Each structure stands twice: as structure tokens, then as C-alpha cells.
């Protein structure tokens, strides 16, 4: 494929179009667009999944069902877009799921044992989440421990704190005033609204602000970013804090809806689905490339598959097997398409 080279303006050179295509059946522009969109695969399979379950089940489009699906989707979406910030830096936060569980537990403890008003307890809990992210970040950038290990340690540590202090008893949560409760996660659509709002905020941060550009640069080529004078360590620590705070926030919202909490819940089970959502959405594990839209669709896809398999009455034994196959096949397609896209652009 021919390629525009650096030409000097000795004589006016007509600008060479950067892509030259036109072979194959599809119009080149369409083919180019599909191949280059990192979200293409996940959009396709999500549409296929909706069509499949629409045929196999009767009630997938019922409002009640959709509302349940979005409640399942909320945490995946929010923690998922948080993990996008990690993945674009070529880092990962495995403690986000445990933060999601621990933050509401902090709220309960501060309210019940320390006598704080609920509103203040929520704020204090979010500050604690930020401190957890700060700790993760500082250990990673200052002491050079890989974030995978740091956050795995943090996940067990937080789990342990909750178990020790709660003595493993289920707790009833404080009931809030009805308006508050509706806005803060009690309403049927609250999770989805918060999820979309947080995802949009992180999308804007990543794509349209100086900070976001520095995040991408740090993840894409840390040395180059540092040579340009970007404070790469500080950028990373901020991202660790953002993940923790949004994970904690959506956790608090979910617990306001669910009213009771189980200290035995295990965060590592929760954090994996969001990471899968980000990765099947087209965010690279190697850093520098992120798509918040892809993560949104990835979270939607996982929720639809989960809901659809439930509705079609697939036995729980088959459930994980099917989900595993779906994820593997999707990722193989994604990676192969990515290679093809790079060749296509050169």
C-alpha cells in the first residue's frame, strides 16, 4: 500500500490522502471505518446478543427486566471506566471491587458505631476511598511494586478489615429520606443514570482535557512523557485515586438500594467483570489506548448475556462455561482485527 511521505514544499504538492484502499467487496471507506473502530467487535456481538435473546425469550424488552439489567450493569460500567484509566496507563486495580464493598461498610460503621450523620458518613467514606487509592498509587510509583500485586494485597487487606471489625455479621443499613434514597441509588434507574454520568465524566477527562492527554502519553510512552516534562508519577497516583473514589461511590449507591450488607462478599469476584468489559470494549492492556464508549458497550453486553442466560433458564452450571467461551472468542477476534487494522493503516 502506498504511503504519504514527508515532502517538502519546493513546488506545491497536492496533499496525498493518507489511506489508499479500494480492493475487496465493501466500499473502502466503510471497511476502513469498521476495521479502525476499536469498538466494532463489541458493538456487533452486542447487537447479535440482543437479537438472539429477543427471539429466545419473550420478556427481554419489558421495562421491569431492563431495569434489573441496568442495576446489574451499573457497577460494571462505573468500575469498568475506572479501570480504563488504569489500563491506559498499563496498570490495573484489582482492589476496586473490594473498595466497592468496603465503602458502604465504612458508611455503616461511621453511622452506627461513630454516630455520624449519614451524609457526613458518606463523605468520610469517600475520603477513605481516596486514601486507599493514594496508598495504591504511592506504593506503585514510589516503591516500584507492580500495581497488580499492590492492589491484590490491598484487596485482601480491606477484606480482612471488614471481617475483623464486623465479626462477620450481616447489617441493616440506615434508611434515608425517600428523595435522597431515590436519587442515591434507590430509584430503579438511579444506577444507570449515575453510571452514564460517571462514564461521560471520565470520557471527557480522558479525551478533552490536558490531564487526560497526559494520562494517555504516560501510558503510551512513559519515557517520552517524562522527557517532555509531564509529572508521570503524579498523573498515575491521581488515576489510582479516581478509580477508588468512583468504585466506592457506586458501592455506596448500591447498598442504599439493597439496604442490607454481607461482610463476607468478596471483591475479587466483582472487579473481574468490569475489567473484562473494558478489555472486550477495545481498551488495550498494554497502555496508551482506551475507549470509554467500548467499555460502556462491553458492560451492556455482559449484562445482556447475564440477563438473557437467566431468562432462557440456562443452568447455572453452564453459565460460566458459556461466558468464558464468549469472552475468549471475542478477545481473539479483537486482537486479530487490531493487527489487521494496523496493517491497513500503514
Amino acid at each position, binding site marked *: 500500500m502506498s504511503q504519504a511521505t514527508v515532502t517538502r514544499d519546493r513546488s506545491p504538492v497536492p496533499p*496525498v490522502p493518507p489511506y489508499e484502499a479500494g480492493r475487496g467487496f465493501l466500499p473502502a471507506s466503510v471497511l476502513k471505518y469498521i476495521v479502525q473502530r476499536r469498538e466494532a467487535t463489541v458493538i456487533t456481538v452486542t447487537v447479535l446478543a440482543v437479537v438472539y435473546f429477543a427471539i429466545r425469550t419473550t420478556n427481554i424488552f419489558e421495562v421491569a427486566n431492563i431495569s434489573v439489567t441496568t442495576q446489574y450493569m451499573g457497577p460494571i460500567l462505573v468500575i469498568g471506566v475506572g479501570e480504563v484509566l488504569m489500563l491506559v496507563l498499563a496498570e490495573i486495580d484489582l482492589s476496586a471491587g473490594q473498595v466497592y464493598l468496603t465503602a458502604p461498610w465504612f458508611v455503616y460503621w461511621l453511622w452506627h458505631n461513630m454516630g455520624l450523620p449519614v451524609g457526613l458518613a458518606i463523605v468520610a467514606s469517600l475520603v477513605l476511598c481516596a486514601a486507599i487509592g493514594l496508598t495504591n498509587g504511592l506504593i506503585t510509583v514510589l516503591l516500584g511494586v507492580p500495581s497488580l500485586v499492590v492492589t491484590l494485597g490491598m484487596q485482601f487487606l480491606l477484606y480482612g478489615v471488614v471481617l475483623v471489625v464486623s465479626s462477620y455479621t450481616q447489617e441493616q443499613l440506615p434508611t434515608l429520606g425517600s428523595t435522597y434514597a431515590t436519587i442515591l441509588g434507590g430509584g430503579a434507574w438511579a444506577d444507570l443514570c449515575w453510571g452514564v454520568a460517571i462514564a461521560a465524566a471520565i470520557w471527557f477527562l480522558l479525551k478533552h482535557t*490536558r490531564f487526560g492527554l497526559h494520562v494517555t502519553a504516560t501510558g503510551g510512552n512513559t519515557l517520552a512523557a517524562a522527557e517532555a516534562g509531564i509529572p508521570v508519577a503524579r498523573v498515575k497516583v491521581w488515576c489510582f485515586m479516581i478509580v477508588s473514589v468512583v468504585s466506592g461511590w457506586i458501592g455506596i449507591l448500591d447498598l442504599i438500594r439493597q439496604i442490607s450488607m454481607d461482610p463476607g462478599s468478596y471483591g475479587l469476584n466483582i472487579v473481574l467483570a468490569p475489567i473484562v468489559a473494558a478489555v472486550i470494549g477495545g481498551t488495550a492492556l498494554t497502555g496508551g489506548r482506551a475507549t470509554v464508549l467500548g467499555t460502556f458497550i462491553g458492560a451492556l453486553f455482559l449484562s445482556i448475556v447475564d440477563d438473557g442466560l437467566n431468562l432462557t433458564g440456562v443452568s447455572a452450571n453452564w453459565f460460566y462455561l458459556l461466558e468464558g467461551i464468549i469472552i475468549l472468542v471475542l478477545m481473539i477476534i479483537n486482537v486479530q482485527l487490531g493487527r489487521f487494522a494496523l496493517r491497513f493503516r500503514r
Partner: protein
Amino acid sequence: MAPPGPTPPPDPPPPAGKAGEDVILRTEGITKRFGAVVALRGVDMHLERGEVLGLVGDNGAGKSTFVKILCGFQTPDSGKIFVEGNEVEFHSVKDARAVGIETVYQDLALVPQLTVYENLFLNRELTSVGRVGVLSRRRMRNLARQYLDNIKVNMPDLNAEVETLSGGQRQAVAVARATRLNAKILLLDEPLAAMGAKESALIMELVKDLSAQGVSMIVIDHNYAHLFALCDRLNVIQQGSVTVDTRVQDTSIEELTELMVSAFRRQLQAGQSALGEITV
């Protein structure tokens, strides 16, 4: 066994053409050692305004160390650096930038996943809405286009990710970024490495244009053909000091090659005899 041959002392530097008329950068007795290894043993060099100076030398002769000291990446053990007659001290790359010394590293220091204009403005982004720092992409694109036109680089697509560019285009982006903010002195570390003949020609033209615009340059390259095409003057660095200072028209590729080959033979001989002493 070869007898241990005495190493002849390096040739004293011949007087340079017309030093001191409009010298923008000058060093005096720069030394640097890393533990037991002496990298630089007193480098005296000068660079005139608008001049392109080539640094020649074997691997390990001290070229890279010298350039790293000039761009503020490393500090010398002793010696002085003068920029436009004033003595300066660099403690970081920032200090060197502040007096107008910019560097194009061999790895180019570009972020492959960012676009051409994002790389040009990396960490010097134009923003609006106060401290929030919302990127003004249109303004950056326009300025980038303007600047690339100024230095006569034709980049068809400013939105292209650097990853998709050819080696020559990447080099042009790196040079453009270094010279964008009124660099007076440009240090180029192997600007033509891994580049085809056609792309090399384009970068050479870019360098010559910048030189004509008054940017002074120091170029490191292993390829004599490149250096003879690019430079006004050459300095040969051998074992940590400048041994030859000559205008390009006063020497030839053959002469330089002969100089380097004979120096290499002497070292090889010395090395072999040293080995012989060890084994015997």
C-alpha cells in the same frame, strides 16, 4: 605474541578555521568520569551561529556523554559551558531549554498513540476554561499547521497517529517540536538512523533550512556521507577529547576513514598485546 607497541599520542587539534567571530556555544575542558572509566578528558569545542557541527567518533569515544552534558541530562565533573559568551550551569534538561538548547533524542521521544499535533504540543498544550484545562484542539492544529509550513514540512494529516507515520515523518515531527519554541541550538542524535535514502534527503534539507534560518546545530552520526552532506565543520572525538577540528571542505571521507581506521588499528594492537600479557 605481538610485542607491546607504544601508543602514539593523539594528533594535536589543528587550529580551526575562524573561531571566535560569532560563537554561540563554547565548552572549556569538560571532563566526566563514571567510576574508573574516564568518558571525557577535557573537551574544548565551539559552535558558531547558524553552523552545523558534526561529531565523529567510535562507540565509547564520548560523543553521547558530551551531548548529554550539553542538553543538561548529565552534569560534568569539571569544565565550563558558555552560551553566547555567558557561562551557564545546567542541572536539568529544563535549564538547557531555558537558554535555547533543544535535543532530538535518537528514540525521538514521541508517543506513538497520540496524533502529530498532540505530540508537537506535548506538555505545552493550549487550553481554555481556566484551570480545568480543556484542550483547544483547533487552535493547536492551526498553529501546528502554520509551524510545519514555516519549516516547509508537508504533513498531510495532522490527526494521524504517530504510530502510522514513516521514520522520516516521525523525525520531522521530533525536529519540529524541538525547534517550535525558538530553539537557538539544536542537538541531533543520529537524525538519519534507520532511514531510507529518500527520507534522509528530506531530513537533510530540513536541517539545512533550519540552519539557514539561524539555528545552530550539533549532529552525531556514524555515516560520513551524511555528515559531509550536512555539516559545515567536523570534530573528531577520540578517547574523550577532540583530536581533529576541521572544516568539511578541508578534508575528505577518505582522510577521515584513514584516521579512524589507523586509530582503531593502534587500539586493537594495544588490546591484543594486553591480552597477550594476560595469557602468557
